[in-house]
């Protein structure tokens, strides 16, 4: 059942629908809250607060955005007001996103990448590769982690991510670029390792 169907059941007082929505979205909420507050437990509190606001305001949801975007908007508003720390400007790291040893002094590839789409497709079914991707995302700096999660895991648009995180779209792209590059490197290491 999609989110909108669950929402209707929630409005009708269906506890199982609430449980399902929490299972779907709570981790995302905690993850995004983590950008604004200092600890995991503070992030959990903001996420919990958000669910309470959802219960109080669910009849006001107008369906103009997806439920997920609506949830995240409530969350970000709360996180900003409870904000243990203000959202900081994202420092721009000028170093390259591909290991410098891969290039010759001329700037051309010395150790060029090889296409890995087929290898990736083959491994998507066994959980191994996806677990590697998740592990790579987990080790990203928090701003990159949030952007990669919202854009590539959750599938929000760059504009939505920028608005939710109060960043410029340019800033979102920079973070996305750095985050994706690290996930790519992790996949390449797995594929090249060829053990799995």
């Amino acid at each position, binding site marked *: 059942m999609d989110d909108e169907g669950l929402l209707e059941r929630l409005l009708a*007082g269906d*506890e199982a629908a*609430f*449980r399902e929505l*929490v*299972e*779907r*979205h*709570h*981790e*995302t909420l905690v993850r995004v809250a983590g950008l604004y507050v200092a600890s995991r437990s503070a992030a*959990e509190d903001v996420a*919990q607060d958000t*669910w*309470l606001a959802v*219960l*109080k305001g669910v*009849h006001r949801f107008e369906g103009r955005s997806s439920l997920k975007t609506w949830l995240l908007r409530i969350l970000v508003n709360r996180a900003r007001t409870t904000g243990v720390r203000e959202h900081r400007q994202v420092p721009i790291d000028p170093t*390259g*996103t*591909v290991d*410098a040893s891969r*290039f010759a002094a*001329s*700037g*051309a*590839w010395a150790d*060029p*990448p*090889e*296409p*890995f*789409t087929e290898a*990736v*497709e083959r491994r*998507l079914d066994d959980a191994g*590769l*996806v677990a590697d*991707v*998740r592990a790579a*995302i987990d080790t990203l700096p928090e701003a990159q982690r949030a952007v*990669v999660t919202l854009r*590539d*895991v959750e*599938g929000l648009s*760059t504009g939505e991510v920028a608005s939710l995180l109060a960043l410029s*779209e*340019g800033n979102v*792209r920079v973070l*996305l*670029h750095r985050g*994706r*590059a690290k*996930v*790519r490197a992790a*996949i*390449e290491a797995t594929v090249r390792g060829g053990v799995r």
Partner: protein
Amino acid sequence: MRLLARDLACVEAVELVTDYLEGALSRRARRRYEHHLAACDGCEAYLEQVRATIRATGQVEPKDLEPETLDALVDLYRQFRAEDAAEPTPPTDEPEQGP
């Protein structure tokens, strides 16, 4: 292409991949990048890798919740419903929903 100041180096081209995929390059920068791609297997493979990376990332499901967290939130829900039922509905401007 005669207007190209100079060819991109691969080390520069890899930094344009995201802006390229997001449609954020100027027309001139996009042409320059595509011109480089057409002649460079390594950078073409790199772009393909990033596309496959995005696809693989889309397969990551949110983590399973800790059962205690879920229980706590369901408790919150029950508490809310109980309080909601106990309190008279506050007046609102909104029209009543039909039965």
